[in-house]
């Protein structure tokens, strides 16, 4: 079902004709699922999101570079953690988001689901790449090696390769709806890697340290290092939200361009 086709069946006008009031909660959700409505909301939200991202990054970087102390074992290299850890979280979060969107594509045929998945894939790949590179730059001085075939590192590398596979698949099909369904199935299969990444440090004897923030019994990091980490994680999350919404807006416009070109070609053939 195309995004515009969905609007005809359950769009605002059709639902108002069925007696739904504009202020009811279900109506608000359905309005948000409408690509045109989403574009309007994105235009209004993006300047605020971009401003909040810049502000929280400024606060986070100030805490990292001027407030956070050196670690008693790692020294100043602990500063790499403030970039590495949020990048790792968001690399995994993007795949989780794509998995929810995959359900939206396959089960509910939500008009924005595969738009959201397609937008999230390159962003998730970027954060996963950043996580691996910053991890290597931390590993060389701390472990004496840029890379070890440790379960955590290897499962993160597998995540990056899966992102590349998904991106290649999106580009292999002309029809985004067909590609979206196939990508959705592969995304759900690939989601099995997320618990493997998370629990790899518990299931196997790894060089990578175990969880020190999200764990039973609370974080084991000193508050003087934890607060800058939280600020940087919030900044990276706001950045993710900003880029994700902007990329979804672009994807909707790209599909409009595609459908207009098809219509123009059909009109030229008929003439």
């Amino acid at each position, binding site marked *: 079902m195309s995004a*515009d086709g969905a609007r005809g069946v359950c769009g605002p006008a059709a639902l108002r004709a069925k007696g739904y009031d504009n202020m009811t909660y279900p109506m608000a959700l359905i309005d948000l699922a409408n690509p*045109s409505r989403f574009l309007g909301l994105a235009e209004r939200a993006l300047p605020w999101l971009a401003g909040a991202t810049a502000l929280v990054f400024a606060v986070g970087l100030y805490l990292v*570079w*001027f407030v956070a102390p*050196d670690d008693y074992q790692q*020294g*100043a*290299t602990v*500063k*790499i953690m403030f*970039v*590495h850890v949020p*990048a790792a979280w968001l690399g995994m979060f993007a795949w989780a988001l794509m998995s929810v969107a995959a359900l939206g594509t396959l089960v509910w045929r939500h008009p924005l689901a595969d738009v959201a998945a397609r937008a999230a894939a*390159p*962003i998730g790949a*970027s*954060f996963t*790449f*950043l996580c691996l*590179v*910053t991890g290597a*730059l*931390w590993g*060389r*001085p701390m472990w004496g090696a840029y890379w070890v075939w440790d379960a955590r590192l290897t499962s993160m590398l597998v995540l990056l390769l899966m992102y590349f596979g998904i991106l290649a698949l999106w580009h292999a099909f002309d029809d985004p709806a067909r590609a979206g369904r196939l990508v959705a199935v592969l995304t759900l299969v690939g989601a099995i890697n997320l618990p493997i990444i998370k629990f790899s440090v518990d299931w196997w004897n790894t060089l990578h340290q175990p969880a020190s923030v999200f764990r039973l019994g609370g974080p084991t990091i000193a508050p003087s290092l934890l607060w800058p980490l939280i600020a940087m994680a919030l900044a990276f999350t706001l*950045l993710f939200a900003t*880029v994700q919404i*902007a*990329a979804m*807006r*672009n994807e909707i*416009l*790209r599909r*409009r*361009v595609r*459908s*207009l*070109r098809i*219509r*123009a070609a059909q*009109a030229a053939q008929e003439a």
Partner: protein
Amino acid sequence: MSLGPHAGFILGAYAVAAAVILGLVVWVVADHRAQRRTLAELDARGVRRRSAPEKGPETP
């Protein structure tokens, strides 16, 4: 502020982070401009969405 003997690794990590973030921002901005430009070109050729509002007369 002293970054100790591993300053190159620390600064390198932040440089890569800055490059990735900048790359993402440039990508979404450039892509948005490209899609808008293509839509404007199609509109100028008279190719419009069925639900697009009709263009009214020019107002002063």
